[in-house]
């Protein structure tokens, strides 16, 4: 308090000098700086280590849970994203060497590893790796050249969202959103991979909607262009915008979804429901990854171990209505959440909502590549 008062006094003293000479001003500024410096020194002891993290808003809650940050003397600095791709941008634009931990959609890991954006993870340093859902640990996409690049920590699906007050019947198929009654009331989101995860299967009937021929990929994009031009209210920038649109009664059904949208809409007073249509949908699994040259890698491992331990997993699952990966945390969850994510039959859940890799980097003469997908997706964005 005293130091603060001194700082204010110095400011007032400076402001009183109506005609400051340059030397006088510099002297005053130096004095002020000295006072401010002393003031700063009296702040509560600064944390020893500043750790930077990037991920979706809400994903930081398990990190903050318990006494982990205090125990390890960490000054936690989160950066929230609007899309997974934003993390890739930020890492490439100077984030390498400054970021300690990120959360990332598993499908992007091979590309990011190939692009030199990630550090390989030593499973021996992740004590509870063996407690995670084996189906997730077995995913090839969390590895690149036989090295692990991500630790699975939450999952969910991309269901069809609908406003029960605005639909005559619960949609059974993705194609139901094209019914005349929903014209101009369909919500789309500019989520490149998400749209492919959903519509790749819905259009072609293939279980892996991301592994398509170039002709099939073009058909999928044509279908999405038709929805965008003739049925959609808007091609929203984020899932948050979609939740807002539901809350404002601007849309009735969606061409893509995320369980979290229902949570956000509910916070705005709107009841939204979701369903996995008969064609199935995409499933997402987000991983904890250590960016290349992360400055505090030992602490990054500690943070990973904390986040996937049972209590923080419970905190995350209950606050975000999300799926978690540590099987030892499942008994701690409320029954309705256990039922919703069908932990007793994850294989069954994965039949309806499928984990899919990103399209391959190199063309093998059959399957459209990631670059093919980006070029086609640009056609949708331009439409």
């Amino acid at each position: 308090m005293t130091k603060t008062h001194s700082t204010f006094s110095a400011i007032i003293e400076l402001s009183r000098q109506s005609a400051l000479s340059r030397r006088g001003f510099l002297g005053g500024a130096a004095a002020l700086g000295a006072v401010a410096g002393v003031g700063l020194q009296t702040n509560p002891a600064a944390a020893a280590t500043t750790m930077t993290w990037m991920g979706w808003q809400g994903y930081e809650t398990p990190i903050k849970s318990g006494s982990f940050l205090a125990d390890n003397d960490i000054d936690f600095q989160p950066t929230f994203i609007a899309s997974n791709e934003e993390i890739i941008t930020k890492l490439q634009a100077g984030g390498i060497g400054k970021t300690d931990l990120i959360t990332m959609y598993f499908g992007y890991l091979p590309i990011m590893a190939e692009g030199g954006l990630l550090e390989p993870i030593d499973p021996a340093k992740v004590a509870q790796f063996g407690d995670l859902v084996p189906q997730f640990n077995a995913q090839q996409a969390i590895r690149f050249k036989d090295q692990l690049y991500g630790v699975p920590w939450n999952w969910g699906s991309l269901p069809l969202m609908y406003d029960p007050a605005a639909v005559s019947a619960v949609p059974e198929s993705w194609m139901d959103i094209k019914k005349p009654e929903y014209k101009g009331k369909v919500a789309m989101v500019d989520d490149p991979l998400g749209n492919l995860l959903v519509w790749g299967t819905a259009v072609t009937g293939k279980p892996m909607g991301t592994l398509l021929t170039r002709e099939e990929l073009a058909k999928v994009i044509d279908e999405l262009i038709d929805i965008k031009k003739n049925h959609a209210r808007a091609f929203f920038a984020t899932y948050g915008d979609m939740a807002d649109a539901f809350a404002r009664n601007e849309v009735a059904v969606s061409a893509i979804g995320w369980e979290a949208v229902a949570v956000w809409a509910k916070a705005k007073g709107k009841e939204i429901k979701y369903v996995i249509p008969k064609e199935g949908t995409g499933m997402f699994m987000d991983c904890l990854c250590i960016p290349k040259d992360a400055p505090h890698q030992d602490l990054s491992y500690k943070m990973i171990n904390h986040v996937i331990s049972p209590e923080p997993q419970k905190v995350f699952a209950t606050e975000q209505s999300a799926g978690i990966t540590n099987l030892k945390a499942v008994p701690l969850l409320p029954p309705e959440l256990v039922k919703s994510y069908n932990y007793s039959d994850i294989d069954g859940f994965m039949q309806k909502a499928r984990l899919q890799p990103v399209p391959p980097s190199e063309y093998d003469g059959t399957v459209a590549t990631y670059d093919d997908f980006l070029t086609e997706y640009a056609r949708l964005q331009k439409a």
Partner: protein
Amino acid sequence: MNLPNWRDLVQGRQAPLLAPAAMLWLMLFAIPLLSFLVFSFWSVKTRIMRPDFTLQNYVFTVTEYGDVLIATLVTAFVIACVTTLLAYLFSYAIRFRAGRYGDMLLFITLITLFGGYLVKIYAWKSILGRDGIINGLLLWAGIIDEPLGILIYSQGAIVITLTYFLLPFAVLPIYGSMRAIPDDLVEAARDLGATPFSAGRDIILPLSERGINVAFLLAFLISVGDYVTPRFVGGGASMMGHFIETQFSFGFNWPRGSAMSFTLLSTSLAIVIACRVVLRQALRQ
């Protein structure tokens, strides 16, 4: 005013004083820009940039994104024209018509600069939305029976939002030019029989040329590079900046993104220079 020439600045006493600013300019502007120019001729293999000299990125930009480039330039041109026209009329009103209320109007203009960019976008989303103020007023007045959906998520919404955002930036240079016009000059023209319209056309407009140019330049260049506003109020109407961002992010293709940036930059500069020449010719006729 006589400006010192370059040699005097470098050899004279000003050189040490200029050095910090020059270093900042070099490090924060010139070197990054030149780096991206060099990148635009490189190639990418397995997500990693490789030094090269290829024009393929420029060919790709023109063939794949020529339509978006033209649409972006047209949208930005419309926004710049509307903004400059409104800014001119507003500045004229402040300088020559508002009398003692002029300063207050200028203050109100400056106040709008304090609002954040995203805050303004979300404000317009609320104003133009189905349950927004405009639809509410139209419903209340009985002009419409149900809310209009076309007010937002359209090209018009982009023009309105960006025009609002850019208006203060355009008003300031034009008002600055008009403040430098002596009242005597306008009064002399009126005394010699000029109507208010012809005095405005023959005296005020030519003498405001520099301010108009700066206002147009600011409005055009800011809107041509913008991609946030179209994403949030355009409902999917994308401008070139969005596709450039894609190349730099999950496209892992900085060379292509750089080529797209320099194509946009060079065509924008060509349009700005052409507009300046046309304006100058028009004002001298």
